[in-house]
């Protein structure tokens, strides 16, 4: 239950919440990004494969091409991985409330896990390498 706050956009930008605010903002933006882009991708796929003559649909093809571009793949990877790891941190802190004492350290641990898990696959996607 959030309270309704009446703040202007400059006030909101000037608010310096530090790491917790960054985590909240990135979590929310990544969540909205996943819903928008993955939802768009599913509907484009549905038009392509489920509607007669859909494979020639210009809009569905343009959306698919946009979604399959490498920068977009890396963005989706960032969003899913950040949202997932941040969510996991929240779940862990909720399950064991005594750990809240170390909630700042938990955020640094999260970055230490996130950066290699994101950067290595992102690099491999960027160069199109075979893995395994």
């Amino acid at each position, binding site marked *: 239950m959030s309270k309704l706050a009446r703040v202007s956009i400059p006030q909101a930008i000037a608010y310096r919440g530090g790491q917790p605010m960054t985590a909240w903002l990135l979590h929310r933006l990544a969540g*909205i990004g996943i819903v928008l882009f*993955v939802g768009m991708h599913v509907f484009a796929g549905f038009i392509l*494969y489920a509607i007669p003559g859909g494979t020639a649909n210009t809009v569905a093809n343009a959306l698919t091409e946009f979604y399959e571009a490498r920068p977009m793949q890396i963005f989706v*990877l960032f969003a899913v991985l950040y949202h997932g790891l941040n969510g*996991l941190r929240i779940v862990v802190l909720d399950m064991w409330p005594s750990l809240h004492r170390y909630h700042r350290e938990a955020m640094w641990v999260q970055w230490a896990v996130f950066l290699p898990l994101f950067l290595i696959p992102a690099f491999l996607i960027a160069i*199109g390498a075979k893995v*395994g």
Partner: protein
Amino acid sequence: MVTQAGAARRSRSKFELYMWFFTRVSGILMLLMGAYSIIYANLMGGRGVMDAGAELRWAFFPISFHVSSTDVELTPNFQNPFWQFYSLLLFAFAATHGANGIRVILKDYVRHPVLLAWLNAMLFVLWLAIMGAAVYLVFAAQGA
């Protein structure tokens, strides 16, 4: 003696509690299911054949479309009822988790109750539509 408003508030808070619980459980399950998909993609013959993008596409939604651009043999490993059921379950978790997240964000920012009710109704219709699209893509459009 329970007043109507009190009962409504209690049932609403129960709904919020269930959704809170569902969000956590589905979030953890989606992470585990994604890891399982990646491991099994490699065990099923994807090793040295799939690129990083294909592995991640398979992890997010294990449907044969997502790896058909690579050199893996789709049948029987990547295209069978197990992965169909698995991908539909993963999609149902993802769609419901996402729709609930958007509902929470709308509740945060939309102040007008009637507008909020309309937006929630639209969100519910979109959720139904995308679930229907996923059922079609997983079970009817395989190998198209």
